[in-house]
């Protein structure tokens, strides 16, 4: 295992991307970053710019309006990076599946931008912060 890979696992900086969510997942993500769950134990830190990010926490089914912004944002992120689909919407678009404005799911959108992208999912509507920690740690162990 190379040193930089090890470092990437030990210090994933996350950037919060909301792609037309209903905000429940976002509230849970913000809960996750409070002192109570202390994600700094795993080196996880919220950063303000996608340039610094190693992991994009994406919530919501992707719709037409945010798609160009997400493509731009994914290109701005320094690689290697991991895309986390947080919540059932990012996973399967749930009840918005047949909606006229939905272009998701997330993995299809991301694979169109970058075929080699690393994508991980945390299901739940919304997932608990504990589930997100478990998901992020498990996904990073497989790197």
């Amino acid at each position, binding site marked *: 295992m*190379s*040193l*930089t*890979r*090890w*470092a*990437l696992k*030990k*210090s994933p900086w996350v950037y919060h991307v909301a792609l037309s969510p209903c905000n429940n997942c976002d509230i849970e993500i913000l809960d996750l970053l409070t*002192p109570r769950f*202390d994600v*700094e*134990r795993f*080196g996880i830190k919220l*950063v*303000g*710019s996608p*340039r*610094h990010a*190693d992991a994009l926490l994406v919530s919501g089914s992707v719709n037409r309006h945010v798609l160009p912004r997400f493509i731009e944002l994914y290109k*701005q992120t*320094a*690689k*290697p990076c991991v895309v986390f689909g947080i919540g059932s919407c990012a996973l399967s678009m749930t009840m918005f599946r047949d909606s006229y404005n939905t272009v998701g799911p997330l993995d299809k959108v991301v694979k169109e931008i970058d075929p080699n992208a690393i994508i991980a999912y945390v299901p739940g509507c919304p997932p608990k912060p504990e589930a997100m920690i478990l998901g992020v740690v498990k996904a990073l162990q497989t790197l």
Partner: protein
Amino acid sequence: MAVQGILTVIKFVVIAIAILVLGLITSWIDRKVTARIQARVGPPWFQPIADILKLLGKETLVPEGAGRNVFLYAPVIGLAGMALAAALLGNALISPEVGFVGDVVVLVYLLVIPAIALIIGASASGNPMAAVGASREMKLILGYELPYLIVIATVIYKTGFTLKLGDIVETQALDGWNLWSISGVIGFFILLLSAQAKLGLVPFDIPEADQELMGGVITEYSGPPLALIRITKTMLLAVLPLLMVTLLMGGVQFEGLSILWGFLKYLVIVVLIVLIRNTNPRVRIDQALKFFWGPVTALSIIAFILAYWGL
């Protein structure tokens, strides 16, 4: 002569690396103490190293419309200035008899270089957030440098116009610490606040302001250049408390147990910085400027006058 020159260069590099290691330890202490204050467990000991290694292994992105060379070289210049400052200070602490008259002045100049390099880099990145951050950083430098310089002038006056770091340490070994006087105590607190602003920590993290400026001056940096900026900040975190120990608290003696005593003095200053950082909200740039040019500068002038009266 040439051999001696090479040896000096090697010594300087080793000292700079030692200061970097000290900075990494300090950075971990900072984060751990912060975590304990917030009733958390906090990061493991290797966290600062992992952060830097990770950034070194990532991709470097140069934004469209950025001045490519200036953007990429600015962090290198900042790190070069910082490393030289660290080597100069460490050299003066390890062997006080070596050094030259006026190295305090050189050190003060070198310590501004990282901030100026950041401003240049941010301005070259072509990002509006970075531009706002750069303008704030510039104002902040104007703010904190004035009282900072007056306090350093006070210290120089108190030690009988010695412009050599080694001599300042030796004078204090003979006459007692500069801290043990009214002007010394005032100077200590002013240096502490200026260090806070120089390090870009709360309450003076206005140029980086994560919540409003998305990182401000460092918004567009990614990968290795960001790692260089982190290294510079880490070294600064070690150099500023060390400078305070040197100027006011009798320096660090490298003989047996006195190293521990020196480290304790250093640690007290670091913990004070962390406590200030964790118990204050961020101020606005105009408030910061008013604060530094108003009460703080007035206090520093009072400290100088008190030092003139021998207090």
